[in-house]
């Protein structure tokens, strides 16, 4: 059997998809696309809503302190500012990262090899993003005693707030473990896979 025979078999009607099969696959894809899009939009909306809500609450108290609410005195309660700024810092870091990544790979769609290089770089950025999130969480834990101390000092919280010393590190610890698991199970193997693919272009 030579290449001519293989080509003949390859071009036979057996190697053509039927119209019915194609229609079924396209319909399935359309439903899947709608589901993925809705899921992504819902996730992004949820994150943005949480961020805007917490920041809005702080700003509301600062700008329009009602008679029933205590005015925020930043000379005595300044530790709350970095606490609420840190998520925005993370968000800005991610946007800057994304733009740099895009500038580094302007022709990532020129060839498969260029796409693989861009994907590998994206993998590196995702791993770095996890380090940034971990660092910011550590920063929050570091300023937690200050926040709690200041809230107690101005009389806005009592001893019940001490539970935060357990709750916050526990939640952040769980998030870090999740990121570590994701790194070992998904990101690191993906990195090796992409490196191997790129290396196969050199052989």
């Amino acid at each position, binding site marked *: *059997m030579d290449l001519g025979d293989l080509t003949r078999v390859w071009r036979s009607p*057996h190697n053509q*998809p039927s119209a019915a099969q194609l229609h079924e696959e396209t319909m399935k894809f359309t439903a899947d696309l709608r589901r993925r899009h809705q899921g992504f939009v819902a996730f992004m909306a949820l994150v943005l809503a949480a961020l805007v809500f917490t920041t809005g609450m702080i700003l509301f108290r600062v700008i329009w302190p009602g008679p029933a609410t205590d005015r925020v005195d930043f000379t005595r309660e300044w530790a709350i500012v970095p606490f609420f700024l840190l998520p925005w810092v993370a968000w800005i870091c991610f946007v800057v990262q994304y733009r740099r990544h895009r500038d580094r790979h302007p022709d990532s769609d020129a060839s498969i090899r260029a796409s693989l290089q861009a994907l590998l770089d994206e993998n590196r950025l995702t791993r770095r993003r996890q380090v940034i999130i971990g660092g910011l969480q550590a920063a929050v834990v570091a300023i937690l005693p200050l926040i709690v101390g200041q809230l107690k000092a101005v009389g806005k919280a009592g001893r019940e707030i001490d539970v935060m010393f357990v709750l916050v590190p526990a939640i952040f610890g769980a998030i870090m473990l999740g990121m570590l698991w994701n790194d070992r199970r998904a990101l690191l193997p993906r990195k090796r896979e992409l490196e191997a693919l790129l290396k*196969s*272009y050199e052989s």
Partner: protein
Amino acid sequence: MSPLEQRERFERWVQDHRAILHHVANGFAEGDDRNDLMQELLLAVWKSIPAFRHGAQPSTFIYRVSHNAALTWKRTQRNYRARLERFQAEPAVAAPAPPDTSDQDLLDRLYAEIRKLPPVDRSLALLMLDGVSYAGMAEIHGLTESNVGVRLHRLKQKLTDAMKGAVHGPR
């Protein structure tokens, strides 16, 4: 590009170039994995439509997008486990099937041989069988034409040898 234009172009491309997607899906996966990969290929084509530059060849574009998606596709754990279970359920030593030289059987064997190749070679083999030129393959993969030539020389030999074995059956 409006969503309507994107949808129209997607439907036209999928219709016109369905054979490319079919060949890539079968060349990189089988069974349930093949269906998952087909969905990934359709998604990759859909997402890439706004990046298509006018003046470029849609077929070359679809080759690059679909082969790229197949090379970087990750099969789901669910299908991987299902495949493992199927494999474990199979008898340890299967009796050799009588050689069947019908086109469908030859095609199945050819796809099986292609799936055994390393990923980049697999992609090049599919492009070669689809009749893509050396220049086209070089452009799609970001290789030089001479590199494509060297690789294809090895690949042709490998595939024809493997298929000879398939036609004559195990000795």
